[in-house]
């Protein structure tokens, strides 16, 4: 569904993505992990044309994202819902209007139907009765959930999550992870998650890829990822006190 072909991206003298190639299948939850500055968000941004590669191509289905423009790009972007790291909610709109925004601006549906859909999605992310609050009057975790409701209100095929649990306490982080997993099961969407939280990655991911020096050093299902002997992966697992999948399941009370 999403394919990177030898994607290279440089910022000044630093090569962030170095001939990166991989493919994400329909319906899977692909998680990219790595240290800060490894290029996780950079790879995510290439999928939605917020960045274009210096070399290589990014495909979504049969469309090359970095060569698309105008209506074709709009059609490609219409397949995505994106949860940004900060939530990226418009501060002067209340929660309900933020969730309604993509439909109000891009569809001709009557306002009553748009409100009903927004309420439905807010309920799906566990936020009922907060529609009239403004983003600065809700917590960080709620902002992310509102961002998620906005991302799914157009019923996209692919959802991108940029650091969905960063800046949140462990309890709220686990709630967001459960929500991501729940959405995949309920909506059957393809998801791409970028995170440095391995508990989150190993719980929600159907495949986990470790990005290091512009390339994936390991890309495997969670069980294989945890068992990997690659020193970078081992360091990362040890730093977060994960010995096996049992530790991950325990963190989620399973």
């Amino acid at each position, binding site marked *: 569904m999403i394919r990177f072909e030898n994607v290279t991206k440089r*910022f*000044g003298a630093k090569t962030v993505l170095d001939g990166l190639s991989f493919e994400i299948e329909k319906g899977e939850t692909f998680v990219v992990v790595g240290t800060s500055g490894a290029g996780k968000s950079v790879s995510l941004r290439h999928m939605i044309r917020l960045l274009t590669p210096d070399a290589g191509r990014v495909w979504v289905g049969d469309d090359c994202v970095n060569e698309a423009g105008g209506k074709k790009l709009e059609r490609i972007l219409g397949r995505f819902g994106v949860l940004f790291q*900060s939530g990226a909610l*418009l501060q002067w709109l209340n929660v309900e209007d933020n969730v309604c925004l993509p439909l109000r601006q891009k569809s001709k549906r009557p306002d009553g139907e748009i409100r009903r859909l927004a309420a439905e999605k807010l309920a799906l992310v566990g936020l009922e009765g907060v529609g009239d609050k403004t983003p600065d009057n809700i917590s960080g975790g709620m902002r992310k959930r509102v961002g998620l409701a906005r991302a799914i209100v157009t019923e996209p095929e692919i959802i991108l999550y940029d650091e969905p649990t960063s800046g949140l306490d462990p309890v709220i982080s686990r709630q967001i992870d459960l929500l991501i997993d729940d959405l995949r099961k309920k909506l059957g969407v393809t998801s791409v998650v970028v995170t440095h939280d391995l508990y989150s990655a190993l719980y929600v991911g159907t495949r986990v890829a470790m990005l290091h020096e512009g390339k994936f050093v390991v890309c495997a299902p969670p069980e294989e990822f945890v068992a990997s002997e690659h020193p970078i992966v081992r360091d990362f697992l040890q730093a977060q006190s994960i010995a096996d999948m049992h530790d991950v399941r325990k963190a989620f009370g399973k």
Partner: protein
Amino acid sequence: MITREPHIFDPPANVFAAAGRGIIMACQGTGQALLLLLGAAAQTPHLFSRKNRDDVMRQLYLVGIKSLGVVSVVALFTGMILALQAGLELRRYGQENNIGTLVCVSMLREMGPFMTGLVIAASVGSAIAAQMGTMTVAEEIAALDVMSINPLRYLMMPRLVALAVMLPLLTVYTNLLGIFGGAIVGATQLGVSLEAYFDNAFRYAENKDLYVGLFKAFLFGLIVVTVACHQGFAATEGAVGVGRATRRTVIVSFLLILVVGYFVTRMFYQ
């Protein structure tokens, strides 16, 4: 898409390389700003659409009504200062009755649009730059881009319309208050009766003075909104970047208002 890729440059090798880079970036910035203006202007047919109507009305209110207080004070005192300075000199030659003409023509041709433009650049322009800058660094603009909601239509066009409409209207208001301020000083400080002041004021003023002044105000409105949105959309590096965008908006708008004002005057009066 409005969201731009970050540019990271190596430090310039010497002063000439730095100057060259500065010139190239200034040219690029001018081109980008003009493209933004054209892009937003191309969205004006959607002015009254259901999706944009409320935003346009809100911006008209913010630019027009919310600026009335500061514009009133500036306008009144501009007229008063003009009348006092000119009146004190003219009184030495017994010509103080002519201050009406001087204040009226000065306000209509230059001071009305100029002072209104500066006040709006400092208040509304800086606010637009800060808002767009904050939205850019908080990824709200990127979110709009990804949702295929054109920021030029959703954000810039309502502000463009508001400034293009309201700046000339505020200029008319500034002109009237300035002329009235001059009348107060004339009557209280210089012994010029209101009748003589207004008789003189409108005797030598021409329609052209008003139209040229309003044309200038319209251009100043375009300048302020273009500079503010361009600087805001280009903001990087968090709060520091937003501060930088706001400061640059005020400086660049002031300079362009001065330069464009001069050339419009030359075009119509030389």
